[in-house]
């Protein structure tokens, strides 16, 4: 897509802001609309845009599938460990009240950490799915349609 100058320039300008907006949705999700899943999808959509414009092979160098295979379980482990942390600190599984001295702060902290885990996993899974679809398609000829 080398000759699509407008597309390349606009995408280059837009990608950092998409990432920034994803982080905003992630960490402001407890006050406004948003949360882990939405932020993860948005974060992944920035990489998908990069892959669309510059090709999946270049995107694989930016975000290697090995790192994705590592990030998918890491988000889940963050989620699970938060639950176990609240057990260790004397509450039920995922009982955020005990995570800090003040129950309200505990709720805030717990939801923030959990949403971060969800966001990590969702972003990694979305990019993995895109790689799987876009990277392995065989070329379609006009006769196949």
């Amino acid at each position: 897509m080398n000759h699509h100058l407008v597309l390349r320039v606009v995408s280059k300008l837009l990608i950092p802001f998409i990432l920034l907006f994803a982080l905003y949705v992630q960490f402001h999700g407890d006050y406004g609309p948003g949360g882990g899943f939405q932020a993860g999808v948005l974060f992944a959509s920035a990489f998908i845009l990069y892959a669309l414009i510059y090709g999946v092979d270049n995107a694989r160098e930016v975000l290697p599938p090995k790192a994705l295979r590592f990030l998918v379980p890491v988000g889940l482990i963050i989620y699970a460990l938060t639950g176990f942390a609240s057990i260790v600190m004397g509450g039920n599984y995922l009982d955020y009240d005990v995570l800090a001295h003040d129950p309200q702060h505990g709720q805030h902290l717990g939801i923030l950490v959990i949403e971060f885990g969800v966001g990590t996993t969702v972003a990694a899974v979305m990019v993995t799915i895109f790689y799987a679809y876009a990277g392995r398609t065989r070329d379609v000829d006009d006769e196949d349609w």
Partner: protein
Amino acid sequence: MFIGATAALLVAMALTLIRAFAGPTLFDRVLAANSFGTKTVLLIGVLGFLTDRPEFLDIALLYALVNFIGTIAVLKFFRYRNLGLSNTEAADREEID
């Protein structure tokens, strides 16, 4: 005033939908889908103020970004029949055409 704007937007969205289904060529349909997405962004914004929840603007912004990416994906797929082509491969494909 917001109710009037919402009604006007819904009418415009219905018109773009008609174009999307009736459009004789692929590009009419893509353009209609894209402008339907833009109308959706506006509708979410207006609905946010109609229901006194201006934080809907965040969702509208998000929808604008994703709509842009979706349109590029559809156009790239129908131009090159492959979503993952890189610059050089796409250039080769252009020469064959």
